[in-house]
C-alpha cells in the first residue's frame, strides 16, 4: 500500500494543478501576444481605432469600447434584477420555496450560451428593430442578453451573502419594531454589502468574457458605438471571428487581444477575492 508520507507528498503536488494550469495558460497566451505588443507598440494597439489586418493596422480601441459598453449595459440590466431577486428570495420567501426557485435560477447558468445568442437573434433583435429601429443586432441586444446571462451569478452569490448575515442582527431590528423591509434596506443589505459587490464584480467578469452569445447578437461591426442601437464588436468576438483564418502578425494581434482580456479578468477576480476576504476578516 501507499506510504503515508508518499501520499501526502503526491497530494501536495497535485494540489497545485489548478494554479499551474492558470500559469501555463498565462504563459502561452503571453508568449504569443507580448512580442507583438512590443513590436507594434502598446499605445497604438490599445488607443488606435484603425483595425485593418490586411494592411497591417491593428488598433483595438473600438473593441475595448464595445466590450466596456456592453458590460456596463449588462450590469444595468443584470444587477438591479439580480439583487432584487436575491433580497426577495432570501428575506421574503419561505425557505422551502427558496430551495426550489434558487436551483431553477442557477439552471439559467447551465443554458448554453449559443442558445442565449440564438434567442437574442430570433426573439430579441426583431423586437428592438421594431421598437427602436436600427439593425436590431446591436449593443443593446448584447447588453440585454448578457444581463440575463449574469443573473444567476449575481443572485446566487448575493443570496449566500444575505443569508450569512447573523440572525441576531435581524432579530434586534425587528424587536425594535422595524418592518422586514426597513430591516432589509437599513441593516441586512449593509451587512451583506461586500458579498453583493463581489457578485457584481464576478458578473462583470462573466459579461466581458462571454463570447458565443455576443458574436450572435451584437452585429460585429468594427466601430466605436455612438448609440445603443449600433452594431459593435467586442474583444472576445474579435478573437473568435478572425482566429480561424488569421496568420502571422494578424494572429499575434489576436493573441495580444487575449492578453488584454486575460489581464482585465484576473484584475476583476483579484478585486472580488479581496472584497470577499475583507468581509471574512471583519466578521
Amino acid at each position, binding site marked *: 500500500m*501507499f506510504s503515508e508520507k508518499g501520499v501526502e507528498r503526491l497530494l501536495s503536488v497535485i494540489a497545485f494543478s489548478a494554479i499551474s494550469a492558470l500559469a501555463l*495558460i498565462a504563459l502561452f497566451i503571453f508568449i504569443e501576444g507580448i512580442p507583438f505588443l512590443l513590436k507594434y507598440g502598446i499605445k497604438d494597439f490599445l488607443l488606435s481605432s484603425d483595425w485593418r489586418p490586411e494592411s497591417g493596422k491593428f488598433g483595438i480601441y473600438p473593441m475595448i469600447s464595445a466590450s466596456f459598453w456592453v458590460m456596463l449595459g449588462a450590469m444595468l440590466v443584470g444587477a438591479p434584477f439580480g439583487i432584487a431577486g436575491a433580497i426577495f428570495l432570501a428575506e421574503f420567501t419561505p425557505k422551502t420555496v427558496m430551495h426550489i426557485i434558487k436551483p431553477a435560477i442557477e439552471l439559467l447558468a447551465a443554458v448554453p450560451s449559443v442558445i442565449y445568442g440564438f434567442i437574442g437573434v430570433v426573439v430579441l433583435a426583431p423586437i428592438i428593430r421594431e421598437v427602436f429601429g436600427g439593425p436590431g443586432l446591436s449593443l443593446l441586444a448584447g447588453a440585454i442578453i448578457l444581463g440575463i446571462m449574469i443573473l444567476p451569478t449575481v443572485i446566487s452569490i448575493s443570496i449566500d451573502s444575505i443569508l450569512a448575515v447573523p440572525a441576531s442582527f435581524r432579530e434586534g431590528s425587528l424587536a425594535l419594531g422595524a418592518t422586514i423591509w426597513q430591516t432589509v434596506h437599513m441593516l441586512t443589505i449593509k451587512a451583506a454589502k461586500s458579498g453583493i459587490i463581489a457578485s457584481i464584480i464576478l458578473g462583470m467578469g462573466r459579461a466581458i468574457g462571454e463570447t458565443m452569445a455576443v458574436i450572435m447578437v451584437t452585429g460585429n461591426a468594427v466601430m466605436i458605438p455612438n448609440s445603443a442601437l449600433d452594431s459593435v464588436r467586442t474583444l472576445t468576438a474579435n478573437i473568435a471571428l478572425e482566429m480561424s483564418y488569421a496568420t502571422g502578425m494578424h494572429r499575434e494581434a489576436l493573441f495580444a487581444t487575449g492578453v488584454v482580456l486575460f489581464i482585465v479578468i484576473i484584475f476583476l477576480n483579484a478585486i472580488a477575492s479581496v472584497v470577499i476576504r475583507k468581509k471574512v476578516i471583519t466578521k
Partner: protein
Amino acid sequence: MRVSPKYTQIGAVTILGAATAFTVAILIFIIIFVLEKGLPVLSFNFLFTNPSDMGRSGGILPILIGTVLLPVLAIIVAAPLGICTSVYLVEFTLESRVTRLIRFGTDCLAGVPSIIFGLFGFIFFVTILGMGWSIMSGGLSLALMILPTIIRTSEEAIRAVPKAYREVSFSLGASRWQTVRKVVLPNALPGVVTGVVLGIGRSIEETAVVIFTAGSSLLIPTSLFDSTRTMAVHFYILAREGLSMENAYGTAASLIIAVLIVNLTAYWMMHRFIAKRN
C-alpha cells in the same frame, strides 16, 4: 409627507417579487421556446442517423458521439486532479499562505473566459503538442476549464463530513490517509459526484473551447486523435450559417434536454446529500 412603513413594505415586496418572477419567467420561456420548436424534429431517426449535406438534412449521430466523448475525457482527467486537490486542502494542510494561493488560483481559473481556454488549447495542445484538432485536445482543454468546479464542489462536500467521524477513526489508530479513504471519501461521495456531474454539464454547454480545439468534423470519430463536434458547436454552425433551421432546432432541443438531465441529476444528488447530513 411620510409614507407609513407598512405601505413601503408592501411596495418593496411587490417590486422585488415582480423582478424575481421576471427572472424565473425568462428561464421558463427559453426552455419552452426551444422545446416547442425542436421537439417535433426530434426522433429516434434524427438522433441515430448520419448527417448529410453539411447537416442540412439527416441526423446527428456523430455529433451525439462527440458530445459524449469530449466530456467523458475531460472528466477522466479533471476528476482525479480536482478531488485530490480538495482532499489535500481540507485534510492534509492547515489554512496558510499556500492554501490561500491555491484557492485564489482556482477562483481565477474559474473566471477565465472560455475563449482564452480555446486560444490556449489551440496553441498548446493542437499546435505545440501536435495533437491537431482532436477529441484529445478538446477533452484536455475542457478538463482545465472544469477543474475549478470540481475542486470547489468536492471541497465543500469533504468539509461537510462531521469532525467526529475523523476523530473516531484517528482514535482507533487509523492514519490520515486511511481515514480519508475509509471514512471521509465514502461519506463525501454524493457531494463529490455532484461536482463531477456539474463538470460534465459545463463541458456539454461549451462552444468556444470546442471549436478551437476539437474542430468541427462531421465524421464518426475512430480514434481520440480525430476531430469531432458537439451538439453546441453543431447548433451554432447550423444556426449561424443558416444551413437548416429545422435541424438547428432539433439539435437545440437535444442540447437543452441533455443539459437539463445532467443538471437536475446534480441537484437531486446534492439534495439527497444535504438531507442525509442533516
